């Protein structure tokens, strides 16, 4: 009985290690592993393995996050490792994104969400130019489309990209933007 339990525990540990290796190494162009790939590497019960791994890596300030597929299918969901807590502004500066460009991204995500999740790029540019220099707006939008934070369709409509859904807690962002202004207004 004990031998069987030890065997099961060893198998679980092996699968958790495998899950970590699969998630931490970038395979394709974008980070993360699709649900069907996880199933192939870890078996049908991969969600349980992911849960255990998420607990294990919490000590390092990480978590396994699932980005749901637009069609809701499990196979197309994307799993990735991300920071459990938000970084500080100083830490964010080391991410390779210019800190001023983050303000453009924050304003764009909030603006797109306020327009039912889709808005013409020219409309976004027009809005952002009231706050940021023209060159920075165009450069930043191109860059964020390329990095997956925003999506641009063939009709040049902008949507929130998969990377924003993976990395940004949009509800918190919207709440903070609203709360911040209220604080400023009170002052």
């Amino acid at each position, binding site marked *: 009985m004990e031998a069987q339990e030890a065997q099961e525990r060893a198998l679980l540990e092996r699968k958790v290690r495998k899950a970590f290796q699969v*998630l*931490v*190494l*970038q395979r394709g162009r974008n*980070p993360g592993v699709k649900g069907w790939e996880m199933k192939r590497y870890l078996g049908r019960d991969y969600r349980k393995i992911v849960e255990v791994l998420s607990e294990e890596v919490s000590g390092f300030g990480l*978590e396994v*996050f699932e980005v749901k597929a637009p069609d809701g299918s499990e196979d197309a969901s994307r799993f*990735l*490792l*991300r*920071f*459990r*807590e*938000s*970084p*500080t*502004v100083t830490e*964010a500066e080391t*991410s390779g994104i210019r*800190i*001023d460009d*983050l*303000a453009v*991204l*924050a*304003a764009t995500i*909030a*603006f797109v*969400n*306020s*327009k*039912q*999740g*889709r*808005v*013409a790029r020219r*409309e976004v540019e027009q*809005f952002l130019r*009231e*706050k940021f220099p023209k060159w920075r707006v165009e450069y930043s939008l191109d860059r964020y489309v390329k990095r997956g934070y925003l999506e641009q369709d063939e*009709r*040049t*409509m902008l949507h929130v990209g998969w*990377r924003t859904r*993976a*990395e*940004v*807690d*949009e*509800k*918190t*962002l*919207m709440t*903070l*933007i*609203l709360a*911040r*202004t209220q604080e*400023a*207004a009170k002052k």
Partner: protein
Amino acid sequence: MGEDKKLEDLLRVIELCRSVETSSANPFDVDIMEKILLLKSKLPQWRFLDELLVDSEALLELTQIVKLQDEWLKHRASSLYIDPLLIQLKIKLLSREALIDAFVKSWHPVAQLDQLSPRGLERAFVYWRDLAPMNERFRNEFGGYGAKPGVVDYQELVSLGVFTKDQFEKSLADLHAELLSKSDGQWIDYAEFVGAKEFETRVRRAYLLAFLISEGRASLKTEPLTGRIWTIGLSEKAGGPSKSVAISVPEAS
């Protein structure tokens, strides 16, 4: 009845749908039922393939609008919906720093290890192999001639009309007097002294202060651990060896 006249209603439906699809207009502004009934009433009139194609195109555009209506409802039902005018106003009122802070507090960056795959290596090789030299790449955009980046000295600024000699001397004397009065024999923070609301003013003050330091009428020291820079005004010209220090003037104050 002319061909175009017959199809006018259908073309108008297509145009309306496309304008809604390419803007953030409310998709519910399109009355789907009314348009479907219109297509239905016109359908018996169509005899030719071209007419039927326009009809099917109109129907396709209407289905796109129904899809948008579905997305619109889902989004509106989510807690992410906020009145667009309200959010625009709030974003306009917020400082860049506050926007950055809000973003960073809601951000959970992805953790991953980048690795070089054989495919990536091959792509990099092909990229570098096919990359034209810089002078060829930028010739079309900037032309074949141009000055390299260099240093603009005081004489050049005077010749360009940025300063007149009198203005420059007066600005220099004013800044020296200000530095002497603010420092009063003590080291003061360089950034605070140079700091001004407008970027242009900060650059101008930094340039003038650099001139004073070069002349020995002010001095500069840096703290290696904190990176803080201190300056002091000198009533008498300092002697001794000089050292060149590069200090950037941030765009944001």
